[in-house]
């Protein structure tokens, strides 16, 4: 019995020593797995892969709920951030646009400071009914404005003041049917008479023109200076179409206004005329049908 026990002890000790040797020889000093490990791992590989795929699927399924909550929070934060960024971009664009318009006004004012005494004003309201085409300015009699003063923009004629309060002024726009202005064709110096509004934002008309009148589409129409309100030489618009009247004796012309009345934001009021000098468009500036100020 003792012998058997001793044999067991020896066997176990030898086994332990053998195992320790085996462990040492298969430690990290070895650059690869031991031979027997490779087939075993290869055998397990498909199962490992399958279980891993299933595990990933389950993880993805449960992760969806967690991710969904996080994504919604992130989405909300991004929306807020985007809204703030959009607001600032809009503000920047507004300022840029305002800067451009004011720059055009300043240029015009500087160019014509010897000819006119100008007051700059901002459009703060517009008549919303269909009967009148008027706008309200943020300056009035306190700034030296009075009725019948001419209102202009860098692109051309806007209208005339028809009512003032200390801090506001109402301007009857050129496009109003009640508005009429003495005009002439810039190229031919032909003075056919009056240009009046049609009630539409983008159309003026010249009525009862002589059948033989020298007027053609594309010609510039400027103020004639007849009457005491508007100085001569201010841009009114461009002749768009000339049509004979049904009586065969006269014809009419439609004029596209130089000013874009839908985008009117800043204007200048001619408070007084310093010299009898015909204002002209700034050098190199061509008339275009773009919104006012954008032709700069």
């Amino acid at each position, binding site marked *: 019995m003792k012998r058997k026990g001793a044999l067991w002890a020896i066997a176990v000790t030898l086994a332990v020593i053998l195992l320790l040797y085996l462990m040492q020889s*298969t430690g*990290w000093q070895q650059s690869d797995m*031991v031979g027997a490990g490779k087939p075993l791992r290869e055998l*397990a590989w498909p199962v*490992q892969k399958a279980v891993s795929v299933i595990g990933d699927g389950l993880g993805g399924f449960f992760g969806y709920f967690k991710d969904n909550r996080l994504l919604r929070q992130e989405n909300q934060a991004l929306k807020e951030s985007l809204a703030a960024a959009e607001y600032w971009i809009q503000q920047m664009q507004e300022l840029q646009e305002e800067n451009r318009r004011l720059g055009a006004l300043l240029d015009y004012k500087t160019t014509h400071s010897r000819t006119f005494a100008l007051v700059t004003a901002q459009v703060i309201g517009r008549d919303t009914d269909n009967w009148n085409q008027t706008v309200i300015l943020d300056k009035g009699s306190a700034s030296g404005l009075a009725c019948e003063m001419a209102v202009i923009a860098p692109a051309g004629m806007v209208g005339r003041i028809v009512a003032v309060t200390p801090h506001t002024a109402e301007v009857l726009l050129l496009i109003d049917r009640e508005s009429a202005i003495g005009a002439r064709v810039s190229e031919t110096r032909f003075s056919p008479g009056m240009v009046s509004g049609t009630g539409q934002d983008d159309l003026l008309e010249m009525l009862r023109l002589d059948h033989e009148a020298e007027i053609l589409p594309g010609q510039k129409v400027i103020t004639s200076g007849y009457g005491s309100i508007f100085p001569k030489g201010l841009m009114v618009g461009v002749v768009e179409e000339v049509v004979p009247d049904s009586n065969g004796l006269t014809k009419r012309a439609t004029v596209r206004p130089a000013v874009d009345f839908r985008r009117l934001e800043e204007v200048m009021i001619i408070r007084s005329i310093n010299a009898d000098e015909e204002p002209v468009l700034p050098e190199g500036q061509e008339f275009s049908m773009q919104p006012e100020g954008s032709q700069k």
Partner: protein
Amino acid sequence: MYNLVLAAITFAGLILRSIFPRALGLAWATPDFPLLLVVFNAMFRGPVYGAVTGFFIGLTEDLFFGRFIGLNALAKCVVGFLAGSLAKSIFKENIWVPIINVFAGSVLSLILVFIIGHLAGARWYLANVFYQGLFEVLFNVCLVPFLYGPFFHFADSRLHFQEES
């Protein structure tokens, strides 16, 4: 048949052990499924069978991971022997018996692996082993209530059948 099922469970346990860290993503600690099997088996079959089964299960584990062959074989052999010795005269139906056995076996296994590994030239940091070992022991103990029942019924029926035949 019993040993064949044990081999299959061991293999499944090893696969589970290899994919567990990625699935759980916790501390790189995994439940030691083979150890649970060694302890459960030893409780039913006694110290000698426990030691032999532990040795072979450990050896399979070593071969599976391909490093330090014999390390787990030796450690699980000792655990199997002790678990079999302790549980020989204890009432196995009580759930606290396998829980305590697994807890003691897990701690012992860690200590043995650490010491024998160092003897074999492994350079493990005690802090890492302690940190991961803590989770491993916790996992093992937590799994006992879920795995011991099925194993009990399987082992009881199979061993009873073997004894009868």
